[in-house]
């Protein structure tokens, strides 16, 4: 399978569907595992890493997941390919820029990835659109069981699944959601929310993980504690209590925008459209932010029936144009979001580009959707 087979569109979990999809973009569950009888990864020699890689690769590729999977040798992949996978959330930045023999087994539909030799020998992840943590867990858990029929995990009754870093001990589970919180930002409540989340012991990070800022009003929320609680309990806490409350905060902020700040909302949406229609150079950061404003407008219409001059004008885009696919929807927005990211741009263009050329190409793609094709 070639990367260009998937590079021209969004994957399923980024299509804008799923429970609470107007706030919860996606759900993800990750399990960290290590093989018994081997050193932890950071202390392994390249030779040992290669041995672990071979072992896990052959087990993973032999599983019957009911899906087509492909294997990518991450240490041998060109930088652009690795960045592309990070952009699609298929591998972590850590994995892309790591050292030594390492690989990834990826489902063609992109809902499942197994990273081999990231910080632990094996990291399994399942992704779904909207708030679907329980479903993610059942799936990744099943895959974990299948793998375990062929190999032995490092495990102690006292400390659970053993990991290279004690912070991942026990369940080795990372429960996370990607949230879109533009209204909390616009009503200056985002700091309050971030502090509340941190007080609950949750980690809050930007779009692409640790160390990234909150680009495009996206925030990734996840657990920090992995020991002393069962996987199902953790998933349930998130799915039934924590996330629904946050969704409600964002909804309330959106309602507030309509009640008292609709001018500000319309202003942000209109400026976004004006720029997207006419800019000739646009950075990734700026594009993501502008698209975020449009996404807010569309979600407010679809989920709250909101109608303001600004929101209405989004829907008149593409009206009367012969090209039906120009009608703007969440899927369109998400697709543009993905395709205008740096590595996506270059993979689809066919070769590496300088930043200024990327900014021009990005602007061109956006103009052709929102403005007059030119």
């Amino acid at each position, binding site marked *: 399978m070639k990367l260009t087979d998937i590079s021209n569109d969004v994957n399923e979990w980024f299509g804008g569907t799923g429970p609470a999809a107007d706030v919860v973009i996606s759900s993800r569950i990750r399990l960290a595992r290590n093989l018994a009888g081997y050193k932890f990864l950071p202390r392994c020699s390249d030779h040992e890493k290669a041995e672990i890689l071979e072992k896990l690769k052959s087990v993973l590729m032999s599983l019957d997941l009911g899906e087509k999977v492909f294997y990518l040798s991450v240490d041998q992949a060109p930088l652009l390919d690795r960045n592309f996978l990070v952009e699609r959330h298929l591998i972590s930045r850590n994995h892309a820029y790591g050292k030594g023999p390492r690989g990834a087994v990826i489902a063609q539909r992109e809902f499942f990835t197994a990273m081999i030799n990231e910080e632990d020998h094996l990291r399994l992840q399942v992704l779904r659109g909207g708030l679907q943590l329980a479903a993610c867990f059942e799936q990744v858990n099943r895959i974990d069981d299948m793998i375990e029929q062929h190999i*032995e995990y490092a495990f102690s009754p006292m400390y659970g699944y053993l990991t290279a870093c004690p912070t991942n001990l026990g369940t080795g589970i990372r429960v996370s959601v990607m949230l879109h919180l533009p209204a909390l930002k616009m009503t200056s409540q985002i700091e309050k929310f971030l502090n509340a989340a941190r007080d609950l012991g949750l980690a809050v990070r930007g779009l692409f993980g640790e160390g990234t800022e909150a680009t495009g009003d996206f925030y990734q929320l996840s657990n920090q504690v992995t020991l002393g609680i069962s996987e199902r309990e953790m998933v349930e806490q998130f799915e039934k209590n924590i996330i629904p409350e946050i969704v409600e905060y964002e909804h309330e902020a959106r309602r507030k925008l309509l009640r008292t700040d609709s001018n500000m909302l319309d202003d942000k949406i209109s400026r976004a459209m004006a720029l997207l229609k006419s800019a000739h150079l646009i950075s990734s950061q700026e594009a993501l932010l502008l698209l975020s404003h449009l996404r807010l407008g569309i979600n407010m219409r679809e989920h709250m029936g909101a109608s303001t001059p600004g929101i209405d004008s989004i829907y008149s885009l593409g009206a009367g144009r012969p090209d039906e696919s120009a009608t703007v929807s969440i899927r369109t927005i998400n697709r543009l979001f993905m395709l205008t990211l740096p590595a996506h741009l270059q993979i689809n263009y066919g070769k590496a580009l300088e930043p200024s050329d990327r900014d021009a190409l990005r602007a061109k793609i956006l103009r052709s959707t929102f403005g007059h094709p030119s």
Partner: protein
Amino acid sequence: MFCQACKKNEATIHLTEISDGNRLEMHLCQDCAVEQGITAKSQMSLNELLSSLLAAAPSDEEIRGQSGADMVCPNCGETLDQFRKDALLGCPNDYQVFEKVLAPLIQKAHEGATAHKGKVPARAPADTVKQNRMLALKHELAEAVKAEDYETAAALRDKINQLER
């Protein structure tokens, strides 16, 4: 106490700035604090917490003094100093070797938890002993090869193959 800026809301954020021996106190409400761009100190990540706890833990010297033995893992050769450098362990056995130092760290990092309460692998790991034996043999094998003691190495390799069966 009322907010110093808007004088309307209750002050919930209290800042003390000390510079050049001068002490400046500010009392603001949530909204004015945001307006002035004052944000609460960003959360310490779990890894940073672990590193700072490690720095506070007794050094190898002190531990040696207490127990009279160097803390080195016989399976992989990891020492406490190595762990302190990047907060990463060498092999599963380290959790037993460094138990005394790790237990309080783990408890702090996981909000008081001390034992695993979740999923257990289907394959009963009564083989923890076997796992560790395997690792120890592999380590010995590497040492023997380094020392060019090929006879011992061959014997060890046979033992490993037997265990793997």
